[in-house]
């Protein structure tokens, strides 16, 4: 292996490159709770559950590779219904694919940011609620990703 000679010139070049970015930073950070990246309509994000379409076949709980999906059964009720645990979900979409009645579907919300672990568990009663991005509910700006010749990926307001 040939070794590249590193002399004074290389050191000066390295420091100069660092200084260039220090003076003119090229940041790619999205300030999340204030800004979010808008996701496409067919994004595989949080899963929505349709209470009426579900036939309680429990295929979703069986196929789930991460054990995130679980059937909940209340006392006195015959039907068990699925609930999801986002601590475990890997967003593979097997449950959505296998559902025979399309009771499960993807949404384009993907804010897996919670204040406590308990909040990440969705029993059927919460699972059925419509998904709204918590950041957008609080008025976050939606950004989109575009290609830039010089800077690569950049985020601009939608």
């Amino acid at each position, binding site marked *: 292996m040939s070794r590249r000679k590193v002399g004074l010139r290389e050191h000066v070049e*390295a*420091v100069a*490159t*660092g*200084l260039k*970015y*220090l003076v003119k*930073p*090229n*940041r*790619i*950070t999205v*300030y999340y709770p204030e800004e979010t990246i808008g996701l496409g309509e067919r994004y595989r994000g949080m899963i929505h559950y349709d209470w009426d379409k579900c036939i309680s076949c429990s295929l979703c709980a069986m196929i789930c590779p991460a054990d995130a999906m679980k059937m909940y059964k209340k006392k006195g009720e015959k039907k068990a219904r699925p609930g999801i645990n986002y601590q475990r979900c890997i967003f593979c979409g097997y449950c959505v694919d296998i559902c025979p009645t399309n009771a499960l579907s993807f949404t384009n919300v993907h804010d897996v940011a919670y204040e406590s672990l308990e909040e990440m568990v969705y029993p059927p009663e919460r699972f059925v609620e419509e998904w709204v991005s918590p950041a957008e509910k609080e008025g976050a700006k939606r950004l989109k990703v575009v290609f830039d010749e010089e800077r690569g990926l950049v985020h601009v307001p939608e």
Partner: protein
Amino acid sequence: MVGEILEIVFSPQFFGPVVFPGLVTVLLVLLTIIWVERKIAARVQMRVGPLYVLKPLGGAIQMLADGLRFFFQEFIIPETVDKLPFVAAPVVAMTFAILPFAFIPVAPDFIPYSVPYSMPVFLGLNTVIPLTIIAMAWGSNNKFSIQGGIREAYMTIAYEAALFTAALAMAITYGTLDFAEMVEAQGVPGILVNPLSAAVFFVAMLMSAGKLPFDIVEGEQEIVAGPFTEYSGIAFGLTMGIGYVQLYGFTLAFTLMYLSGWEPLIPFLHDIYPALGGVMLFAKAYLLMVFIVFLRSVYGRYRLDQALRLGWRRLFPLSLLSVFFAVVLRVIGVV
């Protein structure tokens, strides 16, 4: 009574080591320079860095929050450690990192402990710190700690000879071993008189303080935190602080030796209270520190053998050359 107390507080012997440039200033430097380091590294690496602790100022009190957390965390002493060195070593290390400030003059007539050999005393006290770090490593009884301790031992021999020889060159140039007299002898900043010595001292100083690209001892990605692996709580805070305190001391020494110290003296501030004359000294040292922490975002870490090779094959001969250069300057009578 109050007058007497004030007299003691404002005497150089107390004010120097405890307030400026000593303990209180060290604390302020620690709180700010680590934030500056993280912000600069973030800017260069396309990130934002600490932000949400006091957002209007860009997370400026992040370190205060971290420090408080260290302070109230439990200090765990594992059963397998050798308790005395484990507990005592960080405290001793911090003491020896603070002690050199008693020998740093901040203004022409504000010298805490006036000795004719303040430069060798300053450098000598700093060489005790590696011993305490090795004590930490040995006392921790942990494989990562031992590796870190051995790296520290190797690093010490890599930089110490070059550091002292480079400093010797400046002592020959100015004909004195005292910081205050060195500053007075500098018509032209020392960095222009003997740039070779300045370069060697700068690199050896980085190695000594363990700043990137020479944070080989800690080696986060390789050996957890080196000698500091087993520490938690406030002792971990102390061990993290040692490098920065050393860096601050060394930048002050560098400023005194190569950047003409407190000159140009601001007479107006100096007349109010002599220590305020050290504002220029502090500003230069702080800027130098900012540059050094900026290097974190430019360089990768050197390997241990590369650092040793740099120390013995490059820095040491260069430092000898700088001594020769200083002798030549002295003989032909330029300085």
